[in-house]
């Protein structure tokens, strides 16, 4: 079961996700990127069924881009979160998407924000959130050590504490994690935490 978690710091938000692609007992890939960059200042980390995860997050990404093309201004994080929740809710009673989402974004007016959206379309604006088996360990770690307005270094320390805990206590612990950050300078990949390196992806 895939772990995704995130937290909000002083002027930034961080989303962390594991990077294994698993089918029953087989690990197909250990460097799968599950945190989609929706636009310049938004990150969407998703966990759930493989097909649904990729298709749904891409669908949200394209709709966010479409809004910007049509209206000339980007969506706020709050609007994106509510749009995403609306899409999940509409599909819920017909053809549900089995995806859990942590949406993080930075808006000029309101600063960083984090939204927890689960597969049955509940939406919560939070400072810290987690999904998957890893959440059993990450949530308590974050509850214990989180403070408002942490710096990037302090937040990464906390993230690493959570990753270490997941790796050491979870029986089917994912070996690798990807960390992405969003702040006033935009949404970008921050680091990987790898304990198993996948086969090198060749250059063309």
């Amino acid at each position, binding site marked *: 079961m895939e772990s995704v978690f995130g937290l909000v710091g002083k002027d930034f938000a961080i989303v962390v996700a594991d990077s294994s692609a698993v089918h029953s007992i087989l690990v*197909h890939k250990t460097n799968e990127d599950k945190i989609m960059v929706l636009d310049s200042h938004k990150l969407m980390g998703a966990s759930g069924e493989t*097909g649904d995860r*990729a*298709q749904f997050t891409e669908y949200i990404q394209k709709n966010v881009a479409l809004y910007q093309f049509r209206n000339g201004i980007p969506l706020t994080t709050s609007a994106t979160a509510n749009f995403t929740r609306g899409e999940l809710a509409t599909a819920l009673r017909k053809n549900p998407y089995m995806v859990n989402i942590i949406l993080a974004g930075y808006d000029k007016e309101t600063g960083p924000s984090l939204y927890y959206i689960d597969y049955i379309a509940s939406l919560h604006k939070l400072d810290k959130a987690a999904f998957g088996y890893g959440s059993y360990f990450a949530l308590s770690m974050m509850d214990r050590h989180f403070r408002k307005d942490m710096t990037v270094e302090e937040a990464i320390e906390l993230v690493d504490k959570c990753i270490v805990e997941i790796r050491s206590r979870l029986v089917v612990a994912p070996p690798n994690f990807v960390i992405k950050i969003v702040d006033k300078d935009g949404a970008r990949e921050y680091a990987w935490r790898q304990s198993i390196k996948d*086969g090198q992806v060749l250059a063309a």
Partner: protein
Amino acid sequence: MMKIDFSGLDPAAPIKGRTDELCGDILATPSFALPTTHDFDGFQKAAVQMVKPAKGTTTLAFIFKDGVMVAADSRASMGGYISSQSVKKIIEINPYMLGTMAGGAADCQFWHRNLGIKCRLHELANKRRISVAGASKMLSNILYSYRGMGLSVGTMIAGWDEKGPGLYYVDSEGGRLKGTRFSVGSGSPYAYGVLDSGYRFDLSVEEAAELARRAIYHATFRDGASGGVASVYHVGPNGWKKLSGDDVGELHYMYYPVEPTTVEQEMTEVSVA
């Protein structure tokens, strides 16, 4: 032979079990024979499940410096019955792209053919070949739209396009993974072990073909649902080429020839005294 027990329903049946030969059948409660199974109610469901196409196969593909090596076995099984030993599980989508088959044979063949058509239409409309990423995305979107309707497809799309060699894993749940080494099917864990331990990016074509062949052989050795012929294809800059198709039984004796053992005791004729 188990007979279904209606004695509880029939009050006129003799309570004492003893029936003698002459009137035994007349007085006995009417009943009919059941098939000899432990679990009659679950039996029918199990029979249907047995015949359903499970991903009983071994296919693998990996990228190395000279392109993509694709290999597969050729056995088709329906539960415990081997229905064919000569199934083509590597499907030629177009001269520079291959697809592998795992899951329902009809589903894989049909959708790969369909993908080939769509790729050709793309070529005609855009005056250039479609990329491996594009082709795999088309297939993935099609399969996603049929989610939950019972398609069973676990395929790898391998090809060489402008970006060089490309390999994608696509399945009927709508998943699509880009990678450098994949194995799909019931024999895939066995193949992964041999493949992972022998893999280097800078293998030559012959070494890579031998690695692929060996991995398929080991999977067919341990997995009952895989067997037949190990086919190996290579996708290079000028398209795909079939390198070999060896019967896995013959491969076994090639890899592990029979050692002539010394005879400990030999029976000889005893001369009649």
